[in-house]
């Protein structure tokens, strides 16, 4: 399995060749906020050791997909399988065991503001492992070094810069040496050099710890740099799943828009704008959700 994983990581290999079991398998996922459907029939497969980047404009449903992948939201329909466990049906003890094998770095870091950096990073260990404090501190400091935050242990989250916050969040996400790591918008709100350094960190982590990663981003440059494969979400539907070259080649106009940096945001806004013009309330009428659209 390790051999296959490393094969996959050598970028050009198409994932479909590998007979290894996928680490993540999503089938027919549907998600709603109230009456508003935000994910339509999403399928997704991620292989061991792969870095899967989920791209799409803001409001396309990336974060919602991530919430379903990590079990924070229950799907209205469909199944989500992580490391062979169907998390929509898992019992709480199975889920707890699974949680030790996955790490999540949230968009804003989501560090606990009442604890310093070291205590934040140690918290998963304190909960899941029976170790003495000294050992846990050493393990936490090791992870701080991995993310280039050595020496920041005693700082409070409010004293960290945006880039440092995300790094600390990564350190907390990898403290249990997870096999699966999820990232929401690692580069959002960071200046280019800091965000590029974070991309390097993601690549370094995969190399050093052979993790499988799902990275949500709307930054094209970052996606092309780190991705083995890219999933493009558009208004809750998957438009394309392919490697970097395949995405570049695609002649789908919406993807070309994305590539040419013609802001996809304006298009999403355009729809909202239309809704406003037609006097619809923010929730779109049920009819549009049910009739499959031609274009």
């Amino acid at each position: 399995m390790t051999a296959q994983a490393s094969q996959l990581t050598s970028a050009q290999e198409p994932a479909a060749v590998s007979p290894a079991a996928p680490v993540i398998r999503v089938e027919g996922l549907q998600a709603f906020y109230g009456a508003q459907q935000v994910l339509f029939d999403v399928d997704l497969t991620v292989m061991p050791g792969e870095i899967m980047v989920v791209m799409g404009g803001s409001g396309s449903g990336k974060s919602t997909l991530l919430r379903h992948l990590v079990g924070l939201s229950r799907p209205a329909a469909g199944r989500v399988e992580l490391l062979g466990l169907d998390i929509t049906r898992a019992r709480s003890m199975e889920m707890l065991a699974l949680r030790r094998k996955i790490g999540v770095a949230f968009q804003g870091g989501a560090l606990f503001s009442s604890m310093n950096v070291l205590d934040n990073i140690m918290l998963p260990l304190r909960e899941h492992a029976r170790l003495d404090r000294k050992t846990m501190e050493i393990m936490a400091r090791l992870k701080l070094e991995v993310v280039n935050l050595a020496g920041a242990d005693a700082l409070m989250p409010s004293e960290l810069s945006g880039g440092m916050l995300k790094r600390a969040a990564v350190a907390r996400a990898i403290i249990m040496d997870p096999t699966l790591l999820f990232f929401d918008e690692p580069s959002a709100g960071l200046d280019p050099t800091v965000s590029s350094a974070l991309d390097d960190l993601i690549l370094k982590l995969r190399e050093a710890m052979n993790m499988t990663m799902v990275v949500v981003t709307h930054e094209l440059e970052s996606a092309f740099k780190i991705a083995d494969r890219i999933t493009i979400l558009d208004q809750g539907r998957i438009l394309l799943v392919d490697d970097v070259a395949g995405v570049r080649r695609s002649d789908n106009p919406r993807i070309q828009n994305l590539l040419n940096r013609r802001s996809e945001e304006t298009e999403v806004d355009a729809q909202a704008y239309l809704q406003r013009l037609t006097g619809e309330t923010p929730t779109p009428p049920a009819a549009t959700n049910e009739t499959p659209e031609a274009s």
Partner: protein
Amino acid sequence: MTAMLRVAEGLGRGVLRGADEVGFAAALFVESLFWAVLGPARRQPVRLPAVFAQMLQIGLEALPIATVLAATIGMMLAIQSLYSLGLFGAEHFATVGIGLSVVREFAPLIIGILIAGRSGSALAARFSTMMINQEVDALRVIGISPVRFLVAPALIAMMIMVPALTMWAILVALTAAGLLVTAALEISLGAYFADLISVLSVNDLTHGLGKSVLFAALIALVSAVNGALADGGAEGVGRRTTRAVVHSIAAIIMVDMIFAFVVTSG
């Protein structure tokens, strides 16, 4: 007609949402209890340091203002009772009235409202900030129940500290009242307390403290529910905090009324 329908609809929706939140609060209570009792066996205990930290915040920091409030209420009650009973030449009964109303009504109510305003708002602000910053999501993803980690410690701390503060308020209010009563009736403080003890029963004390335990749970749960429902950034935190305080105080007063009704009719 349509206007009336709209009012009825709004009312209906409000009631439904209210019922939803009451159900949510009840679920939080049961789950907190579950973790407190069964958590240790599952190696997921409610952490005592978290409870102590909350107790310190709720209790110690409220002590000065609670003392001042209780003393003021005690004196006001004394002045009022001495005056109104004096109209009938019955000042000697002042002790009875003061004792009963402080122990059964005033101390629990004043402390309940005080803590709802101080700690309830702080709790709601903390919970909703954590919600909006995805700290609650982070807990769940790590495999830590937010109820066990956040709600249970606050609930337990409340249910210990509010009755403790109420007990303190009873002592302070009765002493403060005593200073005025003893001067007016020209009796010793010892005689005043002896009078009180002969008038008050254990039942009165359990009534007052029992209510304060109930108020404590209400404050913690209303704050937790409002925190959990927070959305919409810093503005959302502010809205939720205000709502939590208003709703806890309303809940306290309503429960107090129901309590009085049930007890006197039973």
